């Protein structure tokens, strides 16, 4: 099932021709309208007509988070103000947010991309989507909302939190699909278990779209198992669209990135140089089909790799692997680079452990991983718990090359955030 079969299955060569044509248009447009890009292009010594092939994209300047912040509120706007239909922001950890503008056509185009994604997972007219992302300045909820309506679904704009109400809506309106973060999906699964609700028996759920936080394959399986559904990985980036940038098809093996809308590069985050196909690096996107705020080579800080093989679903747009970390999330412990997601992957693969964990860095590079015990695995024997701690520490060492101290915690005692879970506490004195 395709939403736009011609585009989704466009042969690679035609896709590349379309990309080149759009890339030239974008460069010409930002060179004519955005002072930041006028300056950056001049500094890089690139003229509009220097872009003759897709390989020439490497000559273009990057756009960084700092560029977006420094040009807040409207420095990157490529249209007159009165042509803007919607404002979103993307919050940073410090200071001003990034302002993100959508023209009427951008709003519609973002919805088209979402419609492609939803149909790609087998959703159609008649499905009921419970959208549990935050409505408001964040792109996550509204972009999904418009796209789901376009694809013919009924949308329940539930927003996040209030698990009792979420459950009530699911029961009363026979929700078939929900859209949320991995941490809230796990939280909701716990909540339902405690409320005595068996999702398979009592609810009509079939699918979930899981986005806004990087998560592991094991977390996906836990979500699928808890609700008896298929969970699809959704990759979004507020700066370039919100959700709908890349999404899994029914194969659930990598996320198709819509290459007619985004020019994709994977670079080494340290050097900025491209990495070979299939190798992990930072995702860099140039928007090819956005009017209000086109971006050249936007540094996502998200780490992923291209899956070069064609997908059995027939779509020609290349797939990305699960995001395995953010270039910003990288921790350096005892000289070793590691990502919280690597730790999560190990923990989720141990059946005796629960869903919540915390990485605590203290003193001079002391690393403690606190993780909840799964209630069913407690057999009353203290020595088995000690052995489990040792086994988990050893598994972690094999994955991240640093042996942390592992501490078991009682189920339900580690913090579960209903939004983005905070998993790392760094209190090192370095």
């Amino acid at each position: 099932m395709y939403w736009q079969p011609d585009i989704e299955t466009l042969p690679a060569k035609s896709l590349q021709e379309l990309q080149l044509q759009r890339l030239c248009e974008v460069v010409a447009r930002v060179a004519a309208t955005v002072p930041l890009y006028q300056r950056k292009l001049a500094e890089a010594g690139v003229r509009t007509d220097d872009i003759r092939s897709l390989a020439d994209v490497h000559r273009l300047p990057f756009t960084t988070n700092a560029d977006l912040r420094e040009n807040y509120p409207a420095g990157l706007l490529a249209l007159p103000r009165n042509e803007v239909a919607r404002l979103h922001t993307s919050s940073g950890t410090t200071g001003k947010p990034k302002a993100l503008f959508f023209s009427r056509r951008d709003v519609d185009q973002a919805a088209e991309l979402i419609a492609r994604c939803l149909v790609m997972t087998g959703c159609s007219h008649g499905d009921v989507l419970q959208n549990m992302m935050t409505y408001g300045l964040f792109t996550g909820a509204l972009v999904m909302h418009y796209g789901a309506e376009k694809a013919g679904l009924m949308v329940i704009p539930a927003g996040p939190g209030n698990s009792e109400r979420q459950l009530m809506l699911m029961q009363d309106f026979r929700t078939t699909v929900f859209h949320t973060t991995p941490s809230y999906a796990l939280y909701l699964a716990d909540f339902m278990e405690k409320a005595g609700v068996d999702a398979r028996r009592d609810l009509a759920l079939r699918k979930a779209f899981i986005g806004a936080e990087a998560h592991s394959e094991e977390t996906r399986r836990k979500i699928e198992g808890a609700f008896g559904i298929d969970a699809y990985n959704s990759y979004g980036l507020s700066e370039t669209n919100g959700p709908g940038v890349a999404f899994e098809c029914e194969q659930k093996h990598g996320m198709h990135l819509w290459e007619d809308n985004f020019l994709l590069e994977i670079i080494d985050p340290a050097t900025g140089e491209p990495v070979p196909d299939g190798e992990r690096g930072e995702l860099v996107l140039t928007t090819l089909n956005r009017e209000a705020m086109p971006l050249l080579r936007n540094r996502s800080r998200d780490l992923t790799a291209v899956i070069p093989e064609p997908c059995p679903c027939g779509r020609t747009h290349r797939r990305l692997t699960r995001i395995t970390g953010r270039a910003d999330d990288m921790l350096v412990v005892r000289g070793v680079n590691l990502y919280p997601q690597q730790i999560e992957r190990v923990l989720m693969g141990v059946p005796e452990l629960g869903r919540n964990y915390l990485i605590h860095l203290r003193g001079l590079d002391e690393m403690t991983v606190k993780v909840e015990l799964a209630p069913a695995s407690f057999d009353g024997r203290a020595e088995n718990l000690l052995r489990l701690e040792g086994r988990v520490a050893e598994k972690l060492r094999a994955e991240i090359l640093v042996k942390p101290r592992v501490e078991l915690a009682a189920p339900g005692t580690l913090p579960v955030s209903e939004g983005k879970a905070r998993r790392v506490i760094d209190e090192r004195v370095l």
Partner: protein
Amino acid sequence: MKPVHLLAVFAENKPDQLARVTKELADASVNIHWVGIADMQRFGVIRFLLDKCDLAYQWLKQHGFTVSLVEVLAAEVEDRPGSLHRVASLLSENGISLNNCSGFVFKNRAIVILEVTELARARQILLAQDIPLLSEEELLSL
């Protein structure tokens, strides 16, 4: 004869843990006959011998505690030097490792609570040597 069960509770190493558990047991009107704590520094396992073990298990579980029932052997030994040694060497001679052991003397009766992995075999060995094993009812009615 109903085998002896202890109720084991997972406890993090926080000062109020024992107080929290025992408050729940009091609320459930469960009487504690014996308590032992395996302290592993970062966490501990508190084990209870209770008059209403199954009720306490359900109660604590519903109140968010991580609990488990552990079957143990309660052997009665003579209250004199060397009697515990006899039990311990019997088990070790037969290759049965003891995970946990605790004992008490009550009204001149010495009771040893044994946690072993091979429960059935340990039971046979002790009974064969005429070491009496108490049922849960007998132990609770001491």
